[in-house]
Structures are given as structure tokens and as C-alpha cells.
């Protein structure tokens, strides 16, 4: 193993550890504001428990939730970065190591032989890798382990294009209402529109990673994001679905062109524990870690 390979593997393990144990400050502050604005004792207790739990996780470097999710890495690979296809095996090894060292719960289940025990799954598909090619000589790695509860309440629909924005908005509100108490609210809502049946879901997942409270750079989309965040909060699901406190802390939409006959919409929801951590590694092995939300 070359030195650079080792640096990338160590960095990926560290990113999984940070993601599992340190909730970004921005999210913690948003929940603290939510707590300050909540009057009911039930809602206050839920948000208080979450905040206390998050602090224990940070101090003890233990996973904040026992469901440490299915592991995904977003990789932005620079043209001149020396490692290429070997990266896949490095990230697989990093996943195995993090499972032992953090530790993460083994969450990769083979339908025939059961839990694989190391978070590495069938035929090389898990951990999930999203790979982008970018200019430059570095690599940007994001680790995003995502839990099962909120993953189960994702929604996807191929709308009739004639329904337009009205139909899109209704579908998103319906998706969050259906998620209800099941995915550990307060939620983060990611929406992908256009791009076909698969890309809209990927865009929705990526939308969760846009920095907290930053609206879409297209003002027309940003206006819809603000409207929908306000509307999903009017649903009153509340913390843990008990009817008090915020329903959603943030809502992001990412867009792609669509086929004239299709209007695909994906909604990917994260629980309050939107876990991710990002780092860049230069070709010389210099690592910079970004823990922001």
C-alpha cells in the first residue's frame, strides 16, 4: 500500500467516525432554537433528549444513534489525482475498518446468507459510491452513512408533466406527511426534480448535503424551497411525531432537465441525525477535514 493510499483509507475511516459521532453544529443549533420555541412538555422533552444525546456522542466519541446506516461515499476525483480505480477497494477497506474501530453496526444484509457483518455488501454495491470527475489534482471525499428509519420513508413518483409545480409541491407535502413519526423528525428534506427515474432520487439525496440554511442559487427554486419548508412545518408532525416542536429544519431542492413526457420527483428524508463529514486530500497527501453542516 502506498503512502497516499494509506492516507485516503485513514481519512475515510476518520470521516465515518466523525459522521457517526459528531453532529454538525449548525444542526445542533437549529434544534436548540426549535427547543427554545417549543412550549409543549412532550416536544421539549424529545428535543432535549436529542440534544443531550448528541453531546454525549461528541464527548465520548460514540455513535449518536445505534443505526449507523448504510455507508455511502461521495467522491469528487481530480484529473491529476494519482489514485484511480484502486479508490473503490480503499473505500471498501475503510468501511470494514470503521465498522470495527468506531464501531459501526453491521448493516449490510445479504438476502440469502444474512448480515455480512462488515457493512460491505453484495457484488460491490455497498458501500455505495457516487463518483464525480473534476479538474485539479486532489480528491474530495464525503462520508454519508444513512439510517434505515428515514430511508424507509423516501418517496418517488413519476408525475404527469401537466400537473406542473402544483403537482410537485403537493407530492412533496404528501411525502413528508406520510413519513409522519416514522423517520425520527425533525427532518431534513431533500428533493430532486427531473433527470429520470433514478437521477431524481440521487439529486434528492445530494440535496441533503447542501450547507444548512443555504437556499438554491436559482431564486425561483429558492422561493419554492422557502414556501415548502414553511408548509411542511404547518403539518405539525413535531419532534418524534408527537405533535410538538419543528417538523423539518431545512428543505433543499436540486433540479435537472426532464424528458418532455416525464416529471420525476424524488423525496429523500433524513432524520434529525443528518450525518456526514467531508475532507479533501491533495496529491501530496495533505488532508483538510470539514465538519460543517
Amino acid at each position, binding site marked *: 500500500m502506498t503512502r497516499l493510499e494509506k492516507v485516503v483509507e485513514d481519512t475515510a475511516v476518520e470521516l465515518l467516525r466523525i459522521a457517526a459521532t459528531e453532529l454538525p453544529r449548525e444542526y445542533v443549533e437549529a434544534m436548540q432554537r426549535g427547543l427554545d420555541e417549543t412550549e409543549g412538555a412532550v416536544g421539549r422533552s424529545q428535543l432535549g433528549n*436529542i440534544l443531550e444525546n448528541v453531546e454525549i456522542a461528541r464527548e465520548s466519541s*460514540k455513535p449518536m444513534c445505534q443505526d449507523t446506516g448504510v455507508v455511502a461515499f461521495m467522491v469528487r476525483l481530480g484529473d491529476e489525482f494519482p489514485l484511480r480505480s484502486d479508490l473503490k477497494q480503499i473505500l471498501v477497506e475503510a468501511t470494514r475498518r470503521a465498522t470495527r474501530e468506531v464501531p459501526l453496526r453491521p448493516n449490510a444484509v445479504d438476502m440469502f446468507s444474512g448480515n455480512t457483518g462488515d457493512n460491505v455488501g453484495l457484488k460491490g454495491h455497498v458501500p455505495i459510491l457516487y463518483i464525480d470527475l473534476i479538474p485539479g489534482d486532489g480528491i474530495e471525499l464525503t462520508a454519508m452513512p444513512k439510517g434505515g428509519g428515514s430511508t424507509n420513508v423516501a418517496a418517488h413518483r413519476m408525475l404527469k408533466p401537466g400537473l406542473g409545480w*402544483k403537482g410537485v409541491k403537493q407530492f412533496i407535502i404528501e411525502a413528508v406527511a406520510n413519513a409522519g413519526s416514522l423517520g425520527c423528525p425533525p427532518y431534513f428534506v431533500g428533493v430532486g426534480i427531473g433527470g429520470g427515474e433514478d437521477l431524481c432520487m440521487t439529486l434528492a439525496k445530494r440535496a441533503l448535503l447542501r450547507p444548512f440554511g443555504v437556499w438554491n442559487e436559482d431564486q425561483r427554486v429558492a422561493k419554492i424551497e422557502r414556501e415548502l419548508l414553511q408548509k411542511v412545518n404547518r403539518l*405539525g408532525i413535531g419532534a418524534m411525531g408527537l405533535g410538538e416542536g419543528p417538523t423539518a429544519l431545512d428543505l433543499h431542492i436540486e433540479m435537472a432537465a426532464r424528458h418532455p413526457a416525464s416529471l420525476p420527483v424524488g423525496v429523500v428524508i433524513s432524520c434529525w441525525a443528518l450525518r456526514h463529514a467531508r475532507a479533501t486530500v491533495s496529491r501530496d497527501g495533505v488532508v483538510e477535514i470539514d465538519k460543517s453542516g
Partner: protein
Amino acid sequence: MEYHLKTPVPESQLRRLKMGDLVYVTGTVITARDEAHLKALDLHERGEAPPVDFGGVCIFHCGPIMRKEGDEWTVVAAGPTTSARMEIFQDNFIEAFRPAIIIGKGGMGDRTAAACGKFGCVYSAFTGGAALLAARGIKRVRDVFWLEELGMPECLWVYEVEDFGPMIVTIDSHGNNMTKDVKDQVTARMKSIMEELRDRHD
């Protein structure tokens, strides 16, 4: 009201609990998710007993992270999982094994609420994701069953707990179901938001 209960919890105490009450438990908590429920019920149907008695204790919908140091298992993180998945057989489980408290998150439906009413059981919600808060209340891992077969998240972990909580009773034995009440309110609000959107022209 706030209650500090000890397992085995007698039915008379469970009947006293009302929706919205705060509960802490000392005694035995056993984890069981989808597969453990199925396996236990399967054994019961065949007239065999599961390896541990669920009567009067807490059933925790939880797939923990555990660590083995020497011969000793310790809990790393142990928050609740989504209980709705167990709705399809929880009532049968309550009838067969008569546990005192079902602990989970996200709430359960009519079938479970009916079984709670009939057999004097309650469902209490532990804050979802608060896995370290839960782990803090677990003092000892007394036993583990079906680990090889079902894996770490799905097997039966038998915990000794002390003031395990806080939990909120969301289904009591008197027909109340907080999650269902909230869900009905959310559906009503969703309908009015949908109507607003439909009637708007912009």
C-alpha cells in the same frame, strides 16, 4: 404523571398508566425486532418456549451496537428502531407472551392498541436516535440469544436496566394512541394545504 416501575410490572400498575405519562423502568429489558418476533412466535406456535421469558418485562424494539471485551458484552449504543414494522405481529406477541411494556419509537397502530387494551400492556416511546441516553440506563448485559443466527441487530439481548428512560406512554391500555391522534391531525392539515395549493393561481 411520572412513574418509576420495576419489572415484573403487575397488570394493576400498567392499567394505571395513561397516555402522556412519563415512565422510567428498572429491571429487565429484552431487545427484539422483526426477526426475533417472528422466531419467537414461530416457536410458540409449535408449542416450544423461547429461551427467555418475556412475561412482565419490557420488549425493546432495538438493534444495538454491542462490543465484546474478553467474555463480557457491553452496550455501545442502543436506541429504539421504528416500531411500525412490528405492527403486523405485535398483537400476537403480546397475547402469546404477555410482556408489560413495548418500547420503541414512531408509535404503533390499532392492532397493537387493541392488544394493549385486552391484555394490560402499554407502548412507550423512547426518543428516536437517542442511543447513548438509552445505553446509559443499561447496567448489565445478562444474556444474548440467537446471535449467530440473526446477527447483532436482530437477536435477543437481555439487559438489566436502572431508571431506563425517560419514555412517554403513547399507547395506554384504555384505547388511547397519541401517534394516531397526531397522525389524524397531520392528515387534516395536509388536506387543507393541498386545497390551498389547488385553488391558487400563480
